[in-house]
């Protein structure tokens, strides 16, 4: 009797387990797992997106060859988007991490008042939709907009920058101050072609417009990351600091030798999130720039969208997706090597 009861209960539990998990699993399989493999399959095919996918034509590795190895417009576009995304990530991730850490250290004091106010204010941009923020900043960044007007109040001689329509690169502009332009630069820079772009193009830096988007994103995310750091700061045992100050360690020494090492796992977490997020940047480009001016804000994610849905090249868009997946994967691994090993020890 008892044995069959237990067996019955086991069977009941088995059925329960599968039926509890089934709905979630079906959704994840249909809309996450299968699509992953679908992308890979589609990257070996030529398809315009209108006929059924089975009508697509197998093309083997053609897209990968065009994107990576053959000298043609597609490769130039792909590596331009790669360059844009790379400058974007390299600019945004360290800035938002350092700014967030700095704000957290400043805010981490028992005697401070208005804590709730600061927390609310700093966090608010990150709960606002990227579309709302994008449209508001599109207005702020106009040539006659409030950003330029505010700067002009403080610097009357300032010549307004057209933030949303300036394709010139920051490093190019800096070199220009020293008289180095595309005309005066050595020919090995302007004529050596690497992966579809000249060396001179590679070293452009983010365009002014891309930098405007980067500032916006730092503004949006720094508050969230600050709260993550603040929570971690409060978990550092106080006696560590007390012992250090008894030994005469300065504030700066305490910061570098206690705070930063103790925060290493959190820094790792914030940088990982930042990298994964920045390499997928899309909304700001869609809402604010449509990838322009002169393609300088076309991110890899925006290129996928444009290739697939504007140019009806679903196969090529899938190939770029696969490459982006590999890039993000490699980035995470490299980053784990650099930061993660020490985080464990």
């Amino acid at each position: 009797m008892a044995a069959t009861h237990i067996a019955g209960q086991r069977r009941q539990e088995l059925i329960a387990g599968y039926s509890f998990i089934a709905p979630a699993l079906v959704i994840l399989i249909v809309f996450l797992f299968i699509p992953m493999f679908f992308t890979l399959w589609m990257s070996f095919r030529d398809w315009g997106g209108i006929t059924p996918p089975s009508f697509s034509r197998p093309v083997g590795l053609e897209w990968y060859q065009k994107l990576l190895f053959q000298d043609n417009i597609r490769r130039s576009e792909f590596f331009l988007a790669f360059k844009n995304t790379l400058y974007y990530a390299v600019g945004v991730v360290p800035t938002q991490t350092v700014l967030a850490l700095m704000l957290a250290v400043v805010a981490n004091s028992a005697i401070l008042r208005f804590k709730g106010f600061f927390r609310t204010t700093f966090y608010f941009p990150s709960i606002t939709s990227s579309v709302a923020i994008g449209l508001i900043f599109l207005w702020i960044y106009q040539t006659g907009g409030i950003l330029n007007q505010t700067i002009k109040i403080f610097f009357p001689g300032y010549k307004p920058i057209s933030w949303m329509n300036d394709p010139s690169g920051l490093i190019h502009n800096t070199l220009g101050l020293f008289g180095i332009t595309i005309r005066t630069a050595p020919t090995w820079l302007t004529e050596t072609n690497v992966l579809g772009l000249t060396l001179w193009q590679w070293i452009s830096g983010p365009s002014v417009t891309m930098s405007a988007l980067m500032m916006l994103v730092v503004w949006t995310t720094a508050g969230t990351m600050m709260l993550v750091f603040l929570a971690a700061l409060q978990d550092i045992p106080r006696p560590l600091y007390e012992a250090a100050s008894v030994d005469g360690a300065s504030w700066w020494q305490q910061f570098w030798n206690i705070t930063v090492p103790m925060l290493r796992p959190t820094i790792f977490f914030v940088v990982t999130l930042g990298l994964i997020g920045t390499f997928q940047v899309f909304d700001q480009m869609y809402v604010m720039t449509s990838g322009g001016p002169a393609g300088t804000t076309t991110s890899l994610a925006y290129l996928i969208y444009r290739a697939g849905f504007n140019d009806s090249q679903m196969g090529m868009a899938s190939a770029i997706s696969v490459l982006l997946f590999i890039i993000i994967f490699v980035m995470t691994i490299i980053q784990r090597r650099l930061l993660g090993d020490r985080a464990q020890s």
Partner: protein
Amino acid sequence: MAERVQTLNPSVTRQPGSAPEWVRSLTTLVRYIVLFGFAILFLAPFIFAIANSFKTPPDIAANPLALIPNPFTLENYQRLTQGAANVPLWTMNSFIFAIAVTISRVFLCSLAGYALARVHFPGRNLVFLAVLATMMIPGVVLLIPRFIILKQLGLLGTYQGGILPIMVDAFGIFLMKQFFESLPSEVEEAARIDGATPFQIFWSVSLPMATAPLIALTIFAFQGTWNELQHFLIALGPTARDLWPLTLGLATLRGAGVGQQLDFGLFLAGSLLMTLPMAIVFIVFQRYFVESGSHAAVKG
């Protein structure tokens, strides 16, 4: 978090042999200056946007820095219901999507999380690994295949197509599993001996104890869906205007204005209107936001 600040930090300020009084006062002053400076930086765009949304378009162009609209007008908000802008309908769609996704995510994620934490069935670890693996997939890589699958299922440009793919969230399952594992299992055991079915135990015993993670999950799901652009752009496409949520509708208004004078009054009014529900939710449930915030940061 706030309680911890109060219990931990006083020891620092009373530290013997630490910096003299005036140095500490100066440090505090610097802290306030930095924090208020950044608070202004974070608030200013919203304040100027609010002020300008109540100005006439010529006034927005001429005096954007004026904080008090003169003349005051609701014209920009009225225009949200005219012409290409169908904001009342888009608002309703945003609510439909956000509510449907939130309810299904809360229910399905807690059900799955509970099964992974408490119910014993073969293949459980494998399923959990699969759920973890999906968290590693960058969303943008799914754009093209999701379009294809929705097309194959005949769901492109339908409410179902907008809702189904984002009905479950691997992070939500993970969150609920972690929580249910932290619960003591004695009460569940007692209910089992009394002959309750696994679903009864889940529904009447375990779920009522999960208020905190459920609120976090609810806020996160609502916020994520309310602010989502990319998925709806793919699932609903350029033609299903009547199904668009606010994000897609407003983003497309910019596209319609390329090459002509952009209607900034309309953008500001629309953006603020879209932000309002999130602002209310944020103010009411502030402390739960911090917990789900670190995950939201992925979206950048």
